[in-house]
């Protein structure tokens, strides 16, 4: 079992590495800060090792018994009105696995970044560079995410949750001099903040009902206490608290209708997208729901909401992925869609399955993003219309991306297949679910999403790696280029080994993480259903019909993509007006961005609310300030009239005061 201090070090080491990079290395000479990447990798890698030890420990005896530490207490302990603020580490199998995935993926991404960000180090002019800043943010982001995962207390979790939001803001806006990046960072921050508001309301709602917790002798903020008290709470409490928390989760995990920030977040460096998408920020929402699953489970309404939002998002985002030409945007929509899958699994009552999918998804999505980064390293654009034929000089990138794509599509026996199949069969059987009808509904949604997923990921692979090369950055019209990259040219070579090695490692995981971690049969060192049992869950039964169905659907999607984009034997041109309208709908992302930015922000806020508050600010708030100033100035002027400069007038005042004091004194007696 890991000692508690070591558990804290899982958070502390990346934190230390980040602070060291930005506060010690960055202000130093170039000769030192170029090692910032190694410092970050060392910190995160050490956290990864500790997390693995924690997983190993968690396999033995379930929950780690770290007592929380009291930070401060208000009122008497256990009193009806008092409460205790505690901090601590909650290291159960769920958080141990999550911590291992987060730190592991982060380590791989940082190794990849050594190569990808090399350019920023070489381009640096003068003593200062963005290079150490990048690794500092990466480390601090990882530390925040690990803190979120290991939090014992909901408030503690919320603090790290917001820190994750902050560092995602800084990372997405890493190239802050690009207007698009700055706008995307702001958008990510603000949209997730909307969800976080719900999160905060959920916490407050629990706090309002602290009396019920106090009656049970529990603390309303401690996660184990919430899980323990959930079945005993009065009706409605669980529902509203769960819905509030789910709002936060939906914001962070980019679920409909708060998904708009994620595609824009592609403006950050590609490894950042990879990290945010694979295991960290967006997975935080799934993790939160899984963490507090006991609370959600008590409310059928909350479960149905989670399931339906998840299912709708899975289809909705996959549909948008069909029509995008930006390789990273396709992957972004794919992430949203896959997160929808996870929420769907949570909603039908299988947190273990959701976590399993999160676990597998972390590897193949990270792999796909890093593959996109590797592609960009060569052609300096993300637009698939200008790629094609890359497999000729990027064999490793091609092969690993293909593995990732197959895994994402859910082809036997790759990782994605196993978890997707578990989700589908759980939804179909509805065994765990609070309500069967919703479960069946989301099954069909998930199946539709599976088809689209297979289609768009092979559209991506075929457009970028097959066919003839269409020129890369050299063909991109100048007005479409990002200013920073306008002077770049295509280099027809494979990426350096520091970038391909992470790809290979991740590809191995993308192949194996599925059937090794949650195998149907005993594999010797790994027992059958290791992952499920680690999370104290029964593995869903393997349903051969559903497995075949999903495979057929996926293969059909791949086949259609090959026919349309590979052999060009099928064309959508003939589908006519309906297709064109639908295409427009997809390209415009169902007009959600337009709705938010134009209707809500520009019309309702700028022209409505803000005008009113501007008027109030100018007239009433400023008016009061002006009035205070006017009063001060004029009363001062009035009093200044007393300052005659004639000393005898002052003397009269002094003696008058003395007389008044004396008279008062005599009257008191």
């Amino acid at each position, binding site marked *: 079992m890991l000692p508690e201090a070591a558990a804290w070090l899982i958070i502390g080491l990346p934190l230390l590495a980040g602070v060291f990079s930005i506060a010690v290395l960055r202000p130093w000479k170039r000769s030192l800060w170029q090692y910032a990447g190694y410092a970050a990798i060392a910190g995160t890698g050490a956290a990864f090792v500790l997390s693995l030890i924690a997983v190993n420990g968690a396999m033995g005896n379930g929950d780690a018994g770290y007592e929380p530490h009291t930070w401060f207490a208000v009122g008497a302990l256990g009193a009806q009105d008092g409460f205790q603020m505690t901090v601590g580490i909650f290291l159960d199998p769920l958080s141990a696995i999550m911590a291992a995935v987060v730190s592991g993926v982060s380590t791989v991404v940082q190794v990849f970044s050594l190569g990808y960000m090399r350019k920023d180090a070489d381009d640096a002019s003068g003593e200062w560079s963005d290079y150490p800043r990048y690794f500092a943010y990466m480390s601090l982001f990882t530390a925040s995410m690990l803190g979120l995962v290991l939090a014992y207390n909901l408030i503690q979790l919320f603090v790290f949750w917001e820190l994750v939001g902050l560092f995602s803001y800084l990372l997405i806006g890493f190239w802050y001099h690009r207007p698009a990046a700055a706008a995307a960072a702001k958008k990510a921050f603000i949209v997730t903040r909307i969800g976080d508001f719900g999160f905060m309301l959920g916490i407050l709602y629990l706090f309002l009902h602290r009396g019920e917790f106090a009656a049970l002798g529990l603390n309303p903020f401690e996660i184990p206490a919430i899980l323990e008290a959930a079945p005993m709470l009065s009706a409605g409490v669980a529902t509203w608290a769960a819905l509030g928390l789910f709002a936060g989760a939906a914001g962070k995990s980019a679920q409909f209708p708060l998904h708009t920030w994620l595609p824009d977040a592609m403006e950050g460096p590609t490894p950042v997208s990879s990290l945010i998408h694979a295991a960290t920020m967006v997975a935080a929402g799934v993790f939160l729901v899984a963490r507090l699953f006991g609370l959600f489970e008590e409310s059928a309404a909350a479960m149905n909401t989670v399931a339906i939002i998840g299912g709708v998002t899975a289809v909705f985002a996959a549909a948008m992925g069909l029509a995008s030409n930006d390789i990273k945007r396709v992957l972004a929509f794919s992430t949203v869609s896959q997160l929808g899958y996870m929420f769907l699994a949570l909603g039908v009552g299988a947190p273990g399955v959701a976590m399993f999918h999160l676990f597998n998804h972390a590897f193949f999505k990270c792999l796909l993003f890093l593959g996109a980064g590797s592609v960009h390293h060569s052609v300096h654009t993300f637009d698939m219309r200008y790629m094609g034929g890359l497999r000729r000089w990027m064999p490793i990138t091609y092969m690993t991306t293909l593995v990732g794509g197959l895994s994402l599509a859910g082809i036997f026996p790759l990782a994605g297949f196993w978890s997707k199949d578990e989700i589908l069969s759980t939804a179909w059987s509805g065994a765990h679910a609070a309500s069967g009808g919703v479960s069946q509904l989301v099954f069909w949604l998930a199946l539709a999403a599976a088809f689209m997923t297979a289609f768009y990921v092979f559209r991506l692979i075929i457009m970028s790696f097959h066919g003839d090369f269409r020129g890369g950055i050299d063909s991109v019209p100048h007005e479409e280029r990002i200013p920073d990259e306008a002077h770049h040219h295509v280099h027809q070579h494979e990426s350096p080994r520091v970038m391909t090695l992470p790809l290979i490692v991740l590809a191995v995981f993308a192949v194996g993480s599925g059937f090794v971690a949650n195998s149907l049969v005993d594999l010797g060192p790994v027992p059958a259903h290791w992952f499920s049992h680690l999370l104290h869950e029964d593995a869903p039964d393997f349903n051969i019909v559903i497995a075949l169905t999903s495979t057929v659907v996926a293969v059909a999607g791949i086949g259609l993509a090959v026919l349309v984009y590979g052999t060009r034997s099928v064309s959508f041109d003939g589908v006519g007006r309906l297709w064109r309208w639908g295409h427009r709908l997809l390209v415009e992302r169902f007009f959600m961005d337009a709705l938010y930015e134009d209707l809500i922000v520009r019309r309702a806020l700028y022209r409505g609310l803000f005008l009113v508050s501007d008027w109030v600010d100018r007239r009433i708030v400023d008016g009061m300030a002006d009035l205070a100033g006017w009063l001060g100035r004029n009363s001062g002027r009035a009093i200044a009239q007393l300052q005659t*400069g004639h*000393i005898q007038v002052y003397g009269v005042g002094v*003696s008058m005061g003395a007389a008044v004091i004396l008279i008062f004194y005599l009257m008191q007696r």
Partner: protein
Amino acid sequence: MLERLLIISAILFCIGLYGVLSRKHIIAVIMSVEIMFNAVNVALVAFSRYTVPAGLRLSGAGTDAERFVLEGQTLAVFVIVVAAAEVALGLALIIALARRRDTVHISDLSTLRR
């Protein structure tokens, strides 16, 4: 007897105060201040003579009775010393002022206003 002297002292003090506050000529003001000093001295001497000194036991008083009995008179001596110094300086100031500003009227001296 004590009350009489104190009343006289109070009357002198108030006359002095009135003079300080109402006279225009600086020398008159200085003279009024002197009257106030003297009023205080009268009160001190009266206290010294007629009140029971704190700390002194009437019966079997020690040989250092003067320490208590003469406190007021000693203080009056110092008041006189300070008054003398004040008058010397004050009058010197008035003469310097009369030379520089060519005035001896307090109402002309209102530079404190700005």
